[in-house]
């Protein structure tokens, strides 16, 4: 039997000042397979992640929905949370109720809350179809390519090289140095640029 846990993040006041997070959590409890739903001030914080881990153990959850910011920001964070609680990290889905809800409908709190509930329902529907996935291993060629040999390229190349790795520094001009070598003394110290 699938058991979904739903975690609604306030993101301080970023989400909670627009979306009624309590009623989103309440609504989530009625969705199919949802065994547990709650809200918390900062889901990505250490105590927030503890809330998730504890719920996974106590309620025997096998998949999780986090409704918070965009997955482009914290999906890896919460995947690690699941992993440390013994779940496959791909049993996670996120509902983006910050960037794509609270922040863009801040003048329409009622509709924003309805939309947040819809987004959570959608994520729950998806996560119930998730399967465990496993990453592949690939080799790592420990050699860096730096494109452009101005200040940035040279400094990057030197630092990588100092760390003990090989670097190829490519420059389209006949000589390295970029704009820097055209300069005289540089602020604020007025020392030379070479």
């Amino acid at each position, binding site marked *: 039997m699938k058991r979904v846990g739903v975690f609604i993040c306030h993101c301080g006041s970023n989400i909670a000042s627009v979306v009624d997070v309590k009623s989103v959590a309440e609504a989530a409890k009625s969705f199919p397979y949802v065994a547990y739903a709650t809200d918390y001030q900062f889901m990505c914080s250490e105590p927030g992640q503890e809330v998730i881990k504890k719920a996974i153990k106590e309620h025997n959850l096998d998949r999780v929905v986090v409704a918070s910011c*965009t*997955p*482009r920001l914290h999906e890896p964070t919460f995947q690690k949370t699941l992993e440390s609680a013994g779940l496959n990290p791909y049993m996670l889905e996120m509902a*983006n109720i*910050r*960037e*794509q*809800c609270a*922040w*863009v*409908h*801040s*003048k*329409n709190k009622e*509709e*924003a809350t*309805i*939309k947040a509930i*819809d*987004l959570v329902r*959608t994520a729950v529907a998806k996560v119930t179809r998730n399967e465990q996935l496993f990453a592949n291993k690939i080799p790592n060629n420990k050699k860096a390519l730096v494109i452009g040999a101005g200040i940035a390229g040279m400094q990057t190349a030197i630092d990588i090289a100092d760390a003990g790795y090989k670097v190829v520094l490519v420059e389209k001009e006949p000589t390295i140095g970029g704009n820097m070598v055209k300069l005289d003394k540089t602020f604020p110290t007025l020392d030379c640029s070479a």
Partner: protein
Amino acid sequence: MSVEAVKDTAWEPKIVAFTCHWCAYAGADLAGLNRMQYPPNVRLIRVPCSGRVNPQFVLRAFQRGADAVLVAG
């Protein structure tokens, strides 16, 4: 529904959007970051690429009552 009727009932369309993770979905995130405001009718589905959108998905949305579908990527 005629245009007049639409006006009278304050009817709002339901829009399903399939958005590419790398561009359109990121763009929607950026709109949020900049606190741009837009009507809440649209629901985004994140796909890895607009090339992932099977015409079947679009038909399914219409079948289930979506008024409009946006594929952006």
